[in-house]
């Protein structure tokens, strides 16, 4: 169960992006790779939020929450048509 991956939405504080990164997507990728070398981003968001979505284990998601510049990590939720 610990290895089961789920989708998470990761909100980033773009203002905290280190100057060494030229593009926010590279910084997001670096933050993600810090918790999982194999994890890949699904979406990179730039208008609706600053952040990305990725498949992670619960442990990786918890670890990612403590990375510099990470505001919050939310598990995927299902919405319904009305």
């Amino acid at each position, binding site marked *: 169960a610990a290895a089961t991956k789920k989708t998470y939405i990761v909100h980033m504080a773009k203002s905290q992006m280190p100057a060494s990164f030229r593009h926010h997507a590279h910084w997001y990728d670096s933050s993600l790779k810090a918790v999982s070398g194999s994890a890949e981003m699904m979406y990179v968001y730039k*208008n609706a939020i600053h952040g990305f979505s990725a498949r992670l284990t619960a442990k990786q998601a918890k670890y990612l929450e403590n990375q510099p510049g990470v505001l919050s990590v939310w598990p995927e939720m*299902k919405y319904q*048509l009305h």
Partner: protein
Amino acid sequence: TTRTPMFLGIDETAGFLPSSAAESDIIIGVLDTGVWPEIKSFDDSGLGPVPSSWKGECEGGTNFTAANCNRKLIGARFFSMGYEASAGAINETDEYKSPRDDDGHGTHTASTAAGSQVVGASLFGYAPGSARGMATRARVAVYKVCWKGGCYNSDILAAMDKAIEDGVNILSLSLGGASVDYYGDSIAVGAFAATENGILVSCSAANAGPAPFSLSNSAPWITTVGAGTLDRDFPASVSLGNGKKFSGVSLYHGDPLPGKLLPFVYAGNASNVTGGNLCIDGSLDGEKVKGKIVLCDRGVNARVDKGAVVKAAGGAGMVLANTALQGEELVADAHLLPATSVGQKSGDAIKTYLFSDPNPTATILFQGTKVGVEPSPILAAFSSRGPNPVTPEILKPDVIAPGVNILAGWTGAAGPTGLPEDSRRVEFNIISGTSMSCPHVSGLAALLKAAHPTWSPAAIRSALMTTAYTAYKSGGQLIDAATGKPSTPYDHGSGHVDPVSALNPGLIYDANTDDYLNFLCALNYTPSQINTVSKRNFTCDSTKKYSAGDLNYPSFAVPLSGSKSSVKYTRTLTNVGESGAYKVSVSSPDSVKVSVEPQTLSFTTMNEKKSYTVTFSAPAAMASGTNMFGRIEWSDGKHVVGSPVAITWS
């Protein structure tokens, strides 16, 4: 849609509505199940070139190419990565991996908001007329985010992200999730960014009524839409063997019942399983229902599923009876067998006959379409209700709009019931939900945006809210289908939209990003939570006293308690009409004193702003959960700028 343009007063456009050129510059983005582009509602005849500001695309995929877009349907994208990651890869033989609509819901909502006019529309002859969207000349961009297995918020966020970049003016979302804090709700967060970009976000309130606290999409930068009925019905009465007759509604089309009374049975007495009265799949005894009309109770499974269950068991027809949850609200369905839906009172009376007569019989008489039904609108029982579960200081829903038995465009991939066994294909379908009322408001917002291009999303919403009505022309307050009694601001918000009045509201309650940031401070959100919602570092001023109730909102929700018996709110009105003096009138509940200062506001120039304060004082504490309602109106004799007041004790 048919009938709703007339019901809303926008069928006769001369002198009221914006020029067609201005309207055709407005782009409505619809996040839903996709689109069936071939229906006439997306015909682009008479439309000029796509607005030069548009940066969107028409993405190809299964059975969908860029050639499916035109000058009406100017954008179509699909977002499936989140869905596929959670639910598995899309089987393209079973589901279109493209903007094409498998379901019908997205085609219905998109055509309701901005469909072109189609003469001679109907569903099997029901609801006939010229069908059109609310903003017939606005452009549509479809963002498919819902699939057969559901809608996932990573996809919804991706679609909102792209829609902002593409350059939509209005976003229409007939979907929602659980009520959580705004920083944990993707629609709320995405809508904040959209609003900051000048995009009005209109969302459905959900269908969890009549329970209180049942709203979705309750953030104050979202326009939250509940549902009401039209003045149209589809009568299909039940005649019993004892000579009594009960009214019901149906969209059944097919072979009629034989011209005689048929044996009649209660599903609960034709089943050996618990809950057999609900006509759940496999619950009916074929021996006991064959050739008979079966009475099923509402609940648990879909209404059309019950019809299919009765038909599969050999039943000849179905009477579907409301329970206390739905009250007297009648929602019509295009059942696969002769069937009608009846209210709770009729259902109870029919059951009394079924249980007392040893050989009960019945038949159903289908009577087509009836218009001019009064009173209308009636608040739909299913329409979700306040108080706002996230922020009690913000009254939601904002408005109600037509959402019951709405005819609009449909997919070619599914029948009108949506059941797998329904092989019928229709260009228009009649369905109900706050999903249907939301795109009405999206289209009306497009009209307002075309008429007033400089208005902010908050200004457009304010115009819709302050001009909404809460009483029938013939007198009496709007009725709630769930109770048969007058509905309250927690049910209908500011009331039913009146778009013609909204075009010239006189005054508006405007709000901008700074106002919403101050609102987030009032909620005591941490800097990190504020950053999650707003994408910026924002430091709340520790010396400032923030109040959620002070957000410049066009309605008032006032939480009181034993320890807090007096609350003061401030509001600012902006003149968007002629110069003039507005006087306030207050209708306050007996137990609460509502005082407004000053009582007159004079405006001499356009966009001039004037503030006022309202003090709500309760001399005595009331029991927790007690609700009371009132209204504050400003009028210059020509305009009435109305705000509902809802006071709740905790």
